[in-house]
Every structure is written in C-alpha cells, then in structure tokens.
C-alpha cells in the first residue's frame, strides 16, 4: 500500500523550480501533491505524480538529481480535529514521522495526507488497525 514520492534536488538559484516544473509538464506528468523543503542553500522538491517512473526518467534526462522514496497516503476526515486524530494514532504507537504534507485532491469528504516514515510497513499496519484508510498506487493515479 506504499506509494511513490519523487524527490528532486534544487539548487537555490533563480528559475530552477520553474525548469523542473517545465520538464514534468513537457513529459505530461500530473502532479497530485507537492511540497518543498528548503535549507539556506538548496531545496528538495517532493512530489506525488501519476507516472513516477516517467517523471524520474524525464528529470534525470535533463540533468536533475532525483530519487524515489516510499511514502504512505492516508485519508483524513476533512473536519476540525481530523488531522489530530490520525497523529494521535501515530503518537500513541511511537511511530516516528519524518515529514508530511497534504494532497491537492480529495476523496469524497476526506482529505489525503502523505507521510514519510522510517518504517512505512509498520506504520501502514498500525493505521489500518485503527480504521484509517490507506490509499494504494492505483487509487492515487485515479484521483
């Protein structure tokens, strides 16, 4: 049930994010979720896309440093306290969360949040045991 995240190294210089976006656009890639983490000197663009392998090839072809990471996408009830509820499950079970961000799209009344864990398999088991729906690759593509 893990999904694929694409991470792209971006030097902190003018137009570099635009260039990455342009490469993805030209390759017909649909971006489902994104976030940028930055330090003073560089950034890492993290995205969930419909065709991760195609996107990775396109970026490398154009000289970007990019890699693939397993992450977990889960449904969060789109109401006040929805996110807190899911984080409580993780916290109560001592599951270490590296970072997270939200999807642009929704499923019905639920928001989708992606999580990066040290141990995604263990986290998936825990989320499911607590009645939280975890989304697979097919579902992400279909959004």
């Amino acid at each position, binding site marked *: 049930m893990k999904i694929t995240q694409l*991470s792209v*190294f971006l*030097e902190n210089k003018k137009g570099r994010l635009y260039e990455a976006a342009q490469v993805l656009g030209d390759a017909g890639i649909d971006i489902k979720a994104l976030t940028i983490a930055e330090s003073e000197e*560089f950034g*890492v663009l993290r995205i969930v896309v419909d065709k991760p392998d195609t996107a990775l090839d396109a970026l490398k072809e154009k000289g*970007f*440093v*990019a890699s693939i990471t397993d992450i977990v996408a889960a449904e969060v009830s789109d109401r006040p306290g929805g996110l807190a509820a899911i984080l409580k499950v993780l916290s109560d079970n001592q599951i270490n969360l590296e970072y997270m961000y939200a999807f642009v799209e929704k499923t019905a009344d639920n928001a989708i949040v992606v999580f*990066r864990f040290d141990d995604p398999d263990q986290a998936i088991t825990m989320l499911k045991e607590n009645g939280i729906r975890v989304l697979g690759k097919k579902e992400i593509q279909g959004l």
Partner: protein
Amino acid sequence: MIFNEKAECMDVSSLADVQSERLKRTVKTVWEQSPFYRGKLNGMGVSCGDIRSIEDIVKLPFTVKDDLREHYPFDLFARPLRDIRELHVTSGTTGNPIVVGYSQEDIDLWSEVIARSLCCAGALPGDMIQVAYGYGLFTGGLGLHYGSLKLGLTVIPCSSGQTKRQLRILQDFKPRVLACTPSYALYMAEVARETGFPAQELGWKIGIFGAEPWSEAMRKEIEQQWGMSAIDIYGLSEIIGPGVACECHCKKGLHIAADVFYPEVIDPKTLKQVPASCPGELVLTPLTKTGMPLIRYRTRDIVNIDYTPCACGRTSPRISKILGRTDDMIIVRGINVFPSQIEEVLLAVEGTEPHYQLVVERGKGGLDTLEVLVELKESFFSDEIKYLQNFEQRISREIESVLGIGVKVRLVEPKTIERSEGKAKRIIDKRSL
C-alpha cells in the same frame, strides 16, 4: 629506459663541474647580449669574473615574471630576432602577456628534455602517443610533440577538446601514452562513463600530466578510472615549457634536468636558499638556453628538493610535486589556503566529485568568507534535508580540520561547476582588495 644516461646518471661532482662551466658561459652571454641583465649585474656590482663556480649563483640577481612583462615583447631576447625560430605566449591576468623566444638550440634542448621525460614516464621508441594538450601558443602541445618525435614515438596531435573524438581515436588507434592536463584526463573519464566507454579496458597505459598542480588523491582517481600509470611532468614556458622535470616509475618526486636547468629553493620572504629538503619557492636558471636566457627565475611554485639518488638509477635531483603556488595561494583571514588541500579532503569524502570551486568574499565588517562549492554525487541524494545538511557539515568539518579556518560548504547539482579542457578555474576571488 634512460634517454640520456650520461646526463641523467652523472655523479654529483661531475654534475657540479658541468653546471659551473655552463653558468659561467650563460652569465657571459647575458652580460654581452642583454642590456637588461648587464644593467642588473652592474647595479649589484657583479662582473662575469665573480662567477667561478655554480655556488656563486647566489651573487646573481633574481628575475621575476614582471621583468618579462615589462620587456614585452622581445627585449629579453639575447639573439637577433631572425635567429629566433619559435615564439610562445602565455596570457597574464594583468598587464602584458609574456613572450618566450626559442632559438634552434632551444628547440633542440626542449625536444631533448621532453624525450628524457617520456622515457622517465615509461614510454619507449615505437610507442604511440595521443597529445591532448592544446597546440598553439601554449607550450604543452608542441613541447610534447617535439619530444615525442625526438624519442621516436608515433604522435597523434589531437590538441585538447572534442572529447568524443579523442575517445574514438583511443579506441581505434590504441595509443599507449596520453599527454594532457590532469583535469582534462578526469573530464574525459567522465565523458567515457556517460557514453559507456570501457575506460579501464581500453584506456591508455601511461598518462603524462602537467600544466596545473594536482594531488596524490587525484592521481589515484585518474589511475583507477583509466587503468593507467599517471606521471607528473613539470615545466613553465619562461624556462622552456614542459620537460623541466618529470617523475619516473618510482613516483618519488620529479627528476629535474639539473645539467641544463639549475634548481634552487628559496624562502620567498628572505630570498635566501632554504636548507636541503625544506619547502620553498623554486628558482630556476637555464644553463644552456640561447634565445632568451634567464638568470635565477622565480617560478612561484612551492616545492622541496631531494638530492638522494633514486631507485631508477638516475642521479638527477628530484623536486616534490608542486605543494602550492605563491600566487595561486589565497590568504583567507590570514591563513594560506591552497586549492590542493581542499581537493584532498573531497576525494576522501564519499559522495562528492573532485569538482569544486572556492569562492572568497569579503563580508560586511571586513571578514573574509570562504565558500566551497561541491557537486553532489547522485547516489548520495536524499529526500531528507537534514541528511543533506549533515553531509554538508561533515565536509566543512573535514576541510576546517585541514585548513584551520571555518568554511561554508554548499552542495550544487552535478556538472554545474565549469569543466575545463585546459586549466581548471578553482578560485573565484570576489574581494576587491
């Protein structure tokens, strides 16, 4: 094989005799032919008669690069222009370029010392050599060319650049020997990797690299990438070009052709000779040149000299690899920084490429900052910022422990630091001093 056993394996006292004779003749020549040197000698109250042996060289004046600039283009020639067979020009960053003139005897001397160097590196008559130094006003290309002809090699005068064609020639002609700058050898290895060229299998067996300082770590990298023995050759246009000194297979210093280029090592501040085997600025006096003889030319290269005999059988003294340059050296917050120090560190840190650039800036408040741009190897990329930051910090700690001053390391994308087909541009000094 030793190209000129008589000259290269001479006993110490015979060598001193030869050097003394030749120095006397050179001083006489410049006294008679060069108003510049006659003026300098007069100014110091030195006459030809004061120079009786090679030890008396300390009575003679030094020559510096600016002397050559100021006498642009031909005023230091000791022969009429019609007797000058070839001119080479080195670009300067400031002021006039430097022009060097070769008489026919000088061209013969150049061929001789390069032939010695090629043999020193392990080349044999009948070998094929790919000369990928630039041909033209730069002395690398033609120098290696003349010496190869003298030794009896088959020369492929590729010049530098057109890397894919270089590899094609390597594959089809199978030359055993390569001559170019060490940074170009690494660049070609990178292109070979990208194009799937089997570098270790089909590579040259011997590489003769010079024209820029390079480290032992870089040697290892080149030898491993190409499956070759990488040899350091040294020289400078003002003296003759490449061929002043070259390593033998022992790789324990560069044998200097001391019968024709007399080496001294001085303290650049006091201008006195330093004790044997101590590092200092290399000073060279060509002993047989006729077109543009120079006296005690200050090279600005920092070396030390080993006078003990070498296992290869040559008795010629050996200079160390260039430890630094008095003018490439940058001074940051009072600390002398040589690019080679940074390079050693990067080659030892897994995950970085030996492509780097140093940027020196004067910050607000007048404090200088040294930033080191390092290319990130693809396999070391992570989606986690903290991992990348730790990686930067690890590199800066390693550099700081070598230099003793704080530096800022910045990871940049692969292949964004300018590659050179000639000399690498390692330092960007933005301080307006």
